[in-house]
């Protein structure tokens, strides 16, 4: 039972990072129906920016997160304008390949300038100390990751539900043409969506750098896919679904690894993906829609 609770705690903090990344996938998919394969690499860029703010500028974790979020938001908007906007009416497959191209570009440009090696965060930014609750230990880093992730998700909920931008985003994702006719600036709304999604990925990048204490140019690939799976799991296009999916995938992965199946932990995630697609393709919180004839 203690092992289970311990893995649950580990899973919750890892899962909250997945959830942040999954939110970006889900928001972008919701609005332009694109699986943004480059999203995992924006998270990688966020991790590097966080690393340089902490090691180069000697600032703390919170400023690092804010700067990484701002830079990633800008990067996301630029990528959308250059690579995705011209393809908005092309076939889905074409935009998907473009997204893969952008992903490769970010990975190998980073590798070219930073080298392929793994970098570690300096020890002094990591919060030392462990909270012991009945045999389960929670590190302060885990606690911090969890708290920051929850705060960001609350902020996102506020933006989506209460602000004008959020309303525009929901309108465009329901019907872009109708939204345009109602006077909503669709291009600007798509830019905001990319900015917000990428900012969340940037924050997740800094947090994961602290969690594993190592970053590398290819670190975004697998977590990117897993975050996407998390988004599908919860119901793609649905924001609470992405949060739930992220946490579920994180917990599941640590549980499998914790019970000795670490070789199969990736396979388990994919099997879950396949099962959810086969049983309820619209995801846990999604509605099944049938094509109108």
């Amino acid at each position, binding site marked *: 039972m203690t092992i289970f609770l311990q893995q649950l705690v580990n899973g919750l903090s890892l899962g909250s990072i997945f959830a942040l990344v999954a939110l970006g996938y889900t928001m972008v998919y919701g609005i332009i129906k694109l699986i943004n394969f480059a999203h995992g690499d924006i998270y990688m860029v966020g991790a590097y920016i966080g690393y340089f703010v902490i090691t180069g500028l000697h600032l703390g974790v919170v400023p690092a997160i804010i700067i990484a979020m701002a830079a990633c938001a800008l990067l996301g908007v630029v990528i959308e304008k250059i*690579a995705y906007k011209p393809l908005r009416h092309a*076939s*889905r497959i074409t935009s998907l390949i*473009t997204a893969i*191209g952008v992903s490769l570009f970010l990975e190998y440009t980073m590798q070219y300038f930073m080298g392929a090696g793994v970098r570690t965060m300096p020890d002094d930014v990591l919060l030392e100390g462990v909270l012991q609750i009945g045999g389960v230990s929670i590190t302060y880093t885990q606690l911090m990751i969890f708290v920051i992730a929850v705060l960001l998700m609350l902020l996102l909920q506020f933006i989506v539900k209460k602000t004008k931008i959020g309303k525009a985003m929901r309108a465009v994702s329901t019907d872009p043409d109708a939204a345009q006719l109602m006077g909503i600036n669709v291009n600007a709304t798509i830019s905001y969506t990319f900015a917000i999604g990428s900012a969340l990925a940037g924050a997740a990048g800094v947090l994961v750098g602290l969690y594993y204490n190592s970053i590398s140019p290819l670190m975004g690939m697998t977590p990117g896919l897993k975050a996407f799976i998390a988004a599908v799991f919860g119901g793609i296009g649905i924001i609470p679904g992405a949060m739930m999916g992220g946490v579920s995938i994180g917990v599941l992965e640590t549980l499998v690894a914790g019970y000795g199946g670490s070789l199969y932990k990736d396979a388990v995630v*994919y*099997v879950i993906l*396949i099962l959810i*697609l086969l049983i309820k393709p619209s995801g846990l919180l999604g509605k099944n829609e049938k094509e109108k*004839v």
Partner: protein
Amino acid sequence: MKNWFTKNNIRWAVFTVLVYALFQYLISVNIINSYYQVVLYNIGINIVLALGLNLIIGYSGQFSLGHAGFMAIGAYCAGLVMLKVDGTVGFLAGIGFGIVMTALIALIIAIPTLRLRGDYLAIATLGFSEVIRIAITNMDDITGGAAGLNNIPKITNFNWIFGVIVISLVLIVNFARSSHGRATASVREDEIAAESMGVNTTKYKTLAFVIGACLASVGGALYAGNFYTLTPGIFGFMKSVDILVIVVFGGMGSLSGSIVAAFLLGLINMFLNDYAELRMIIYSVLIIVIMVYRPNGLFGNKELNINAIFKRKGGKRS
């Protein structure tokens, strides 16, 4: 029999022989030296893989991101047989074993998965492909695990690759230009209308998926017979992407487009090898530029017309 020897078919046959002779000549006088041969074989194997994927994506309209998984099954099946049985017999047996295994696994995957559409199908096939790769990695006793298989005899050569490409092309074209091929295309065009016209859409989607997967398997076998070693890492997501890029760049539904695209991308990669570190950056920018400026690929869904090469004369419906 007289149906086989139409003017069009004879022209294609002559063209094929000429292409074969040209490459054999270039190899014999060492213009295509051993380095270029490596590049050429790679292009050839990619063509086989791309033809299979084009059948799935371009003809039946099903978006698969899991081609590398089927290639892996074909490569490992062939590799394992070739380590036991020497020579051509082993290679042929390996190809056959790979096809049977791939067909079985593709069928098992297809039946539940092909109910999904578009992106969902893409992600599900990607998931299956990764599961195949992880399974191969973890079956240490049979596959050698992460270290892979070594000392596979080298049997793949130009004749094998050229032969496989020609046979695949003939089979795919014959399939496409038949009632079954038209039914497959109708699924791509409008699944609901196809179903309402009496087309068993599930059957034709599955058929295209399994045939495409089997071609990937043969491509994998050629790969196994060419590179001496196999490791699971070769068959990751990026391999599926490479093949997908060829198909989309050539034009979805265009077989000649896939061939031309495989050549162009293969040659580009060869030149980029000189820029070791910049290679992937340039390649990724190229992918983006190609997609933005040629979203329908080089050939669209059109084919190279043999009559246009021989003579400027419009062909009648055949």
